[in-house]
């Protein structure tokens, strides 16, 4: 557990809103002042100015808002931690010298006490004293923040005002700032990927310190428990993820068995046989399937399809689990149909018409052209789109959480209950959790596997599709 203060402890929230509002108002004032000043220094001759008056306004507004905002952000990040440090430093020594985890707990209690929540233990005098100290520091800190930010904003306006002259290259300055903002927002994608990789990787490494990586990758037993006491019955959990991988593959396999034939044949029919009018209605109707939230599929799978398959199976004399892989896989397959069909539709349409014409000229029927010319030519692209669909199926969560089981069975029987990687991530991380146990860390290790596998599948698929496109362009 990290020692972190909430960025926005409850009392700060309204203050922050008002502060931001004030800052926005000041910036607007800065804009008008700057514009006005530009008119003034131009002596009524606008062509004396280097830039349009509005740019001088924006220039002043930026001087007002930007430094103040940066200071505000840094302040908000640093303040809670510093307050905690000061409060802890001001505590009696017997509290200060507690072991780190106990200290952490106490600090949490303290924060809850300050924000008026329920605390886990009755506060003693020292804690109450500390809470008061905390509150005082918070008030002082907030007041100081107001003063500093508003002073900066005013000073910014003054600087902007002073700097405005007919020769000031205001437009260029403003455009530089906007350019930096554009570049900054375009790096968000990189930071997101980095965030995903780092967060998942760090927790996974912690997990692999507790459970060896070979046991995780090749173990055949999955029962994620961690003991509360050392001598507890069943205290040793097993973290062998093979049953999860096979379960995921089984359900995705069933899904692909449903989605690939239906999706591919639909795409072929729509692009080769259907009249434009039929295509114009059937294609969007089929794509509705892609827009339905997955939780709806999950509900449908769990409450309609699963009982149906169970009744059907028992009527035929099979033993069907009520949360069979079949139900989840079938419904997931339905969900994936539009992915396969629209992706292969693109691919089929990319095959040059001349190839079709050549085949027809030799006397081939339509279906012969499709089977002997179109499909071989489009095969790489179709494989690519199927790989994308597989990665989608592996990462799908809600359907399996609602319709597949929780018990990790190592089986290939589609009528038995299996569990998947995503189901386990959800079950391990929902509900109360302590962040240090192997149980919760295992979820991140599974997440790492999921991320890696889907990433590799996507890269291969995109590569294949791109190569294929280039072939015909």
């Amino acid at each position, binding site marked *: *557990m*990290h020692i*972190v203060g*909430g960025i*926005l402890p409850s009392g700060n929230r309204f203050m922050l809103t008002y502060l931001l509002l004030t800052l926005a108002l000041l910036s607007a004032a800065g804009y008008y002042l700057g514009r006005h000043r530009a008119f003034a220094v131009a002596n009524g001759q606008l062509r004396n100015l280097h830039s349009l008056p509005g740019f001088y306004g924006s220039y002043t507004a930026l001087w007002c808002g930007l430094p103040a905002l940066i200071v505000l952000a840094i302040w908000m990040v640093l303040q809670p931690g510093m307050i905690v440090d000061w409060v802890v430093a001001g505590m009696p020594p017997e509290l200060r010298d507690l072991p780190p985890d106990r200290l952490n707990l106490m600090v949490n209690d303290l924060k809850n006490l300050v924000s008026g929540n329920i605390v886990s233990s009755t506060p003693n005098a020292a804690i109450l004293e500390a809470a008061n100290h905390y509150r005082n520091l918070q008030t002082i800190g907030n007041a100081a923040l107001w003063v500093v930010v508003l002073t900066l904003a005013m000073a910014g306006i003054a600087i902007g005002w002073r700097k405005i002259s007919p020769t000031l290259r205001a437009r260029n300055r403003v*455009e530089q700032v*906007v350019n930096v*903002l*554009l570049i900054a*927002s*375009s*790096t*968000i*994608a*990189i930071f*997101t990927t980095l965030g*995903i990789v780092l*967060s998942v990787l760090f927790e996974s490494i912690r997990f692999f310190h507790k459970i060896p990586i070979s046991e995780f990758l090749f173990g055949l037993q999955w029962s994620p428990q961690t003991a509360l006491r050392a001598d507890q019955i069943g205290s040793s959990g097993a973290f062998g993820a093979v049953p999860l991988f096979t379960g995921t593959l089984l359900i995705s396999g069933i899904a692909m068995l449903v989605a690939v*034939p*239906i*999706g*591919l*044949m639909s795409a072929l*029919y729509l692009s080769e046989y259907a009249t434009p009018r039929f295509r114009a209605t*059937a294609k969007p*109707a*089929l794509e509705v*399937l892609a*827009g*339905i*939230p997955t*939780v*709806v599929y*999950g*509900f*449908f799978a*769990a*409450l*309609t399809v699963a009982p149906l398959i169970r009744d059907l199976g028992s009527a035929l004399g099979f033993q069907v689990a009520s949360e069979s892989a079949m139900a989840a896989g079938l419904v997931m397959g*339905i969900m994936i149909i*539009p992915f396969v069909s629209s992706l292969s539709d693109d691919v089929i349409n990319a095959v040059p018409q001349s190839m079709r014409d050549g085949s027809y000229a030799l*006397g081939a*029927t*339509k*279906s012969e052209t499709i*089977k002997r010319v179109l499909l071989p030519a489009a095969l790489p692209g179709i494989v690519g789109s199927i790989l994308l669909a597989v*990665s*989608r199926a592996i*990462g*799908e*969560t*809600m359907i399996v959480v*609602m319709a597949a089981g929780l018990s990790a069975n190592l089986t290939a029987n589609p009528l038995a209950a299996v569990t998947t990687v995503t189901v386990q991530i959800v079950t391990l*991380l*929902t509900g109360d959790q302590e*962040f240090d146990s192997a149980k919760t860390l295992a979820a991140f290790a599974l*997440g790492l596997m999921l*991320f890696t596998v*889907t*990433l590799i599948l996507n890269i291969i698929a995109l590569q294949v599709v791109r190569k294929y496109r280039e072939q015909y362009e």
Partner: protein
Amino acid sequence: MNKPSDSAAPDFRNRDIKTIVNAGLKRRHAAERRFRWYGLIAISLGLAFVALMFGNIISKGYPAFWQTYVQLPIRFDPTVIDPEGHHDPKAIESADYAALVRAGLRDLFPAVQGRTELRALYDLVSSDAAYELRRRVIANPALIGTSQEVWLLASATVDTLVKGNIDRTLDETERPIKDNQVGWIDKLQASGKIEKQFNTILFTGGDSREPEQAGIRGALMGSFYTLLITFLLSFPMGVATAVYLEEFAPKNRWTDLIEVNINNLAAVPSIVFGLLGLAVFINFFGLPRSAPLVGGLVLSLMTLPVIIIAGRAALTSVPPSIREAALGMGASKLQMVGHHVLPLAMPGMLTGAIIGMARALGESAPLLMIGMVAFIVDVPKGLMDPATVLPVQIYLWADLPERAFVERTSAAIMVLLAFMVLMNGLAIILRKRFERRW
């Protein structure tokens, strides 16, 4: 070598080529027809699934928009409500209104005696009935001392029976409602004291463990706040990124890296974004669990690639002549983009954004990771209040065994789908209205 006798060639010489083709033609045409049928069957299967799912959900869900009410004769007994006669609001608020409901039920069925029998009788009415009476009395204290016929919320089992979803032929022990209760309900129905009214609670109530009192308002507000954050963050950033990559960025390794990242993020499983949110926003930055703020942050990271990709497509569809004209008139690059290119690309960008928001509205997996699955009764009032969203509410209700919750889950799904249809319809209209072919 080329002896005519050991190859198929003599056939061509001896027989007319037309007969060979004709011989195979029937088989080939049959294969053609078969193939065509396979295609048609595949499409019909796909469309049948759409129809089946919608039909299934609508047929299950539409009864939830109606709710059974029971009419009871209620005597607003002053000795129960206001025993001291001061009209003290506090006393009125804390009075035992459930006793009034029980008295009303006993008045209707005076013959019922004995503890178990009476308890079965009291179970016909929801626990909300007492709150309803309290609300009425607080709103209109003049009621005290009068007798009124009041429509009160029936319990979920009564509702289910009235809607015909309990098999009366089953043995008493196998259904949730007892024989004597069925008898009373039949009597009430015969005398017109049971009625189905439009279910407003579904839209005005928060979550509840009692199906008849459970509503989706809390979830809807949670979805609203979450999507608000998502839009406010992802739209400006998405537009800025698209503008930078299309109009300003030099073609180099760095921008290639950004592009690869965006394409990969679009394909990362949503649950991984949940893990990111848990590790970064909650554990590292210490933001509160279950808050719409965190949900919005996670969803905006998920929606960003969609908006960027749609935005770039919209920008490339603006013809270069417009840019050249603007630059030729002496505009700076930023003025060219801001005054001319961006306004022309805006409808396309908004369409992409709306489709991205519709997807975010239906997303639930990453929100499970950041704790938006708690049972929350109160309707959230801000970005930091614990909240849940509509899809997660559906997930939570789908787990509950009561038949009445199945009905409500389907109704919630219908509301969710209605919003999705609305958003996608808006996107289509926007595209049709403002799309320009250059």
